[in-house]
Every structure is written in structure tokens, then in C-alpha cells.
């Protein structure tokens, strides 16, 4: 049978991901009831949702305009495009160290620059206070993942026939009108894919949080994945760690199904 070609790939995925996930379900389910009693978890889930919502919104607001700019023809465009997509390809955990250095209160450039510009009178302890630590996390994440939205938008822009835009221009449509009437509707399927992936990955964020803030100060930046890690590797509570994992996975699956409906429902295939 020809479909044998699919077998080794399927076996690896089933063996390494599907079976372990299925095997974890019973121990997770028996601890599901504890989710409701955990006040820490409520705070951490709220952190995660706030972080994901704000980050993904900012990535869309920045990613689409960046893609529109990079879609134009100009000299050195290849180099500029490569630089713009660079953060997406760089290792999160490694660049998180770079951001930790940038946000350092005594020696960091993010603390020094506002003082030189006269915007602050003393060093800002970016990672030392709950609100600024949360903001730092969002800045570093937006830096890292806006390129992903820009990449998908740019690829979609390249498939839009130029005559369509030109026809609108001849009909007297201004740039803003052309963007909202022609470009944005045609971008929508790509944006829906981008938002789905980004939401799911933002909710599952670990590397950046772990290295940049460790979840602190005082749990202010702790996210679900970091909490799961602590429950399992610090407290050895496998059942509870799995329960949170299952609840998160179900939420992610629901998001992707809902977004999938949205893509198919609104855009012609």
C-alpha cells in the first residue's frame, strides 16, 4: 500500500505526543476539581489572558502596517525585510537574556535612555515592580512575534493582484478607503491564521517569562506554563500539573476551532 509512506511520521507523532498525552488524561482528570479552589491559579490565568490579549492585539496593530511598508518597492528591500523578520527566528530564551540586560535598572539602556531624554529623574526598576515587569514582558514578546504577523500578511499581500488596487485607485478610492475595502478583506484569512497561532502560543508562553522575570515580582508576570512547570518540577504534583495542562489544551483547541469557523464562514475558500 502506497500510504505506508505516511506511517513512520505518524508513528513518531503518536508515540512521542499522542500516547503520552492520552496516558496523562486519567491522572489529570482526577485533579480537575482542585482547579476551582486555587486562588493562585485564578490570578495566573488572568495574567496569561491579559498578556495574550494585549500582546496579540499589539502584534496585529504593528505587524500589518509593517507588512504594508515592506510590500512597497524600494532599494535594499531584501536586507530590510530580512532584518524585520529576524526577531521571529532568534531563540526566545537567549534573546530574553538580552532583554533582561536591556531592562536592568542600574546598567540597562531602557532605564538610562529615559533619564538622558529628561523623561525620568531616576533609574526605572523595570523588572522590579509588578506593572513595569508586566509591560517589559509585553514589549519583549511584541518585539519577538510581530514579525510572524508581518510575514503572513506580507505573503498574503503578494497574492493580491496589483490591478485590483489600481482599478480602485482609478475609480477614485483614496489610500485609506482602498485599504479597508480591498486589502484588509483579502488579508483576513491570513490574519485569522496568524491570530489563531499567536493566541495559542501566547497562552502557552514559557521561555520568555522564565528567563526575563521568572514569573515575578510576586507572581505578577507568572503564566500558566510557568505554573505547570513549578507544580511538576518544584512540588512534584504531577496530577495537578496535568489537570492545568488539560484545561489549557482544551481552551486552546476551542480557540482554534472557533477561529477555523470564522475563517471558513467569512472568507470564500
Amino acid at each position, binding site marked *: 500500500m502506497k500510504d505506508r509512506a505516511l506511517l513512520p511520521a505518524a508513528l513518531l507523532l503518536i*508515540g512521542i505526543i499522542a500516547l503520552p498525552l492520552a496516558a496523562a488524561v486519567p491522572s489529570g482528570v482526577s485533579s480537575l476539581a482542585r482547579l476551582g479552589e486555587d486562588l493562585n491559579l485564578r490570578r495566573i490565568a488572568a495574567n496569561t489572558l491579559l498578556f495574550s490579549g494585549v500582546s496579540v492585539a499589539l502584534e496585529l496593530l504593528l505587524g500589518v502596517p509593517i507588512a504594508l511598508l515592506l510590500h*512597497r518597492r524600494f532599494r535594499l528591500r531584501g536586507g530590510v525585510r530580512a532584518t524585520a523578520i529576524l526577531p521571529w527566528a532568534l531563540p526566545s530564551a537567549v534573546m530574553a537574556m538580552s532583554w533582561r540586560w536591556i531592562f536592568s535598572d542600574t546598567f540597562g539602556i531602557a532605564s538610562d535612555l529615559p533619564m538622558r531624554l529628561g523623561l525620568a529623574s531616576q533609574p526605572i526598576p523595570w523588572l522590579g515592580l509588578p506593572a513595569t515587569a508586566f509591560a517589559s514582558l509585553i514589549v519583549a514578546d511584541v518585539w519577538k512575534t510581530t514579525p510572524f504577523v508581518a510575514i503572513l500578511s506580507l505573503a498574503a499581500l503578494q497574492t493580491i493582484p496589483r490591478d485590483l488596487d489600481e482599478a480602485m485607485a482609478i475609480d477614485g478610492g483614496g489610500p485609506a478607503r482602498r485599504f479597508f475595502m480591498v486589502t484588509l478583506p483579502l488579508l483576513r484569512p491570513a490574519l485569522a491564521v496568524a491570530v489563531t497561532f499567536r493566541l495559542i502560543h501566547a*497562552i502557552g508562553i514559557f521561555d520568555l517569562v522564565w528567563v526575563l522575570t521568572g514569573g515575578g515580582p510576586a507572581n505578577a508576570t507568572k503564566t500558566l506554563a510557568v505554573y505547570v512547570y513549578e507544580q511538576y518540577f518544584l512540588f512534584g504534583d504531577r496530577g495537578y500539573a496535568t489537570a492545568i495542562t488539560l484545561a489549557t489544551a482544551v481552551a486552546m483547541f476551542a480557540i482554534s476551532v472557533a477561529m477555523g469557523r470564522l475563517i471558513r464562514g467569512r472568507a470564500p475558500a
Partner: protein
Amino acid sequence: MRRAPFILLILLIVAWSAGPFLWSVLTSLKPAHEVFRAPPSYLPRALSIESYTEIFERRPFGLYLLNSLVVAAGSTLLVLLLAAPAAHRLARMRRGRAVGLERGFLLFALFPPAVLLVPLFTAVRALGLTNSHLGLILVHAALNLPFAIWTLTAFFRELPVEIEEAARIDGFTPSGLLARVVLPLAAPALAATGILVFIFSWNEFVIALTLIQRDALRTVPVGISMLSGATVYEIPWGQISAAVVLTTLPVVAAVLALQRWILSGLTAGAVKG
């Protein structure tokens, strides 16, 4: 848009995107006493490569690099070996059936690695493969396989089926056809996909952090995150910056080389859907 604001915006994008990397480059080239100067100097007053020599002489950075190389190369090889035949088959199958199977594969890419952490760790421990590069290679391969199948399927669909039909008439067996006709034609796509999978494995943190506990086996991202001193004033930021630069440099080179492909080939599937 007028020329001046356009150029200004492009410069802003470049500065913002390259900024953190460039700041690490500048920090890595300062002598130790200048790294810990408050307020910081923006351009190094004196250039020094001591941070670079120190991470190799006083830290096991060379070992971390070697470990990362072994894991990334191993998982990339495994991914291509499994993905190429599967993707070719999917591309030559009836479209409706292929889409269903492709979705099945992509479902595995839905969850970020941190979410799969507990089941993955339990499974690898049950296999007795914690603290081994093989365990990490298997997990990285499984995590990246769906992506590779997806991009390669999109590529094989663009490849004219007539070439394969002609080769079949010439007497090639199915496996001979794949090895001697299809894969050579797919070399550029295999290389591009392979380089990206290599980068993803090179970059991966949370699984490597948990599966590998022995320092001598650690990969670069985990090793860097653990470079530390006793107090805030002892965190070796010069060395860390040098390690950041050396770890990200190959990725920078790969992105410069693959920019065009990332913006067209990689996303073909997502956009044309």
C-alpha cells in the same frame, strides 16, 4: 506616502528589529569594567574580546555549542527522513483525503511545547531517555515534523506530476522514483525546510531545560540562561552577551540567506490554504 516619512519609518523598523541584538554585540565587545558602568556607555570606549575568550576558557560554552549542534542536526535529519516521503504521498493523493490527513498532522503542531511538557517528560523518562541527546532529538523531531510535512507537501504539489509519470514509464520503482527523481528536484525545498527545523531545534528551550539535568549535556539556550554569579553585580553580562551573539549569529546568517523563501515558500500553504 512621501519619501522622507517612508524612509524614517523603514529606519525605525530596522533599528527596533536589530536593536536588542546590536546592544548585545556592543556589550560583548566592552571590557568587563566598562560593562558595569552606570550610566552605561553606548559605544565601547575600548574594544575587548575578553568576554569571548572567557566563555570558552572559564565556562563550558564550547561544549554547549557542540551539544546543540548534535541535537539540532540529529532532529533535522530525522524530520527530513520522515517528512519527505509522507509529504510526497500527501501531495499525490486525492485532494480531499490529503487535506483531512494534513489537518491530522497539523493538529500535533497546535500546542506549544510548554503545554506538552508534562506528558512529554513523563514519556521520555519512561523510555529511560532523560539526560540523553537521543531523547531530546526524538522530541524535537516530533515537534517539528508537522511543520516540515506541511511546507514540503505544498512544494511537491507545485512539482509537475508529468516528470514522475515519465520516470515511471522509464521503469523506476516507487522508492527509486522518490530517491532518484523527486528528492533531487526537491533539494532546494528540503534544504530550506531543513535549515528552519535546525533553527527551531537550536532555539528550543523548555524541553531541553527539563530533559537534560547534567551540565555537560546541556544545549546552548539552557546553558546561557544558567550563566550567573552570586549577586546581581556578579552576573557576567559581558560573557552572557558574547554567548548571545555567538548563538544567534548562525540564525542571523540563515535568515539573511532564506529571507525570500520564508516570505513566499514557507507561507504558501497558509495563504493559499
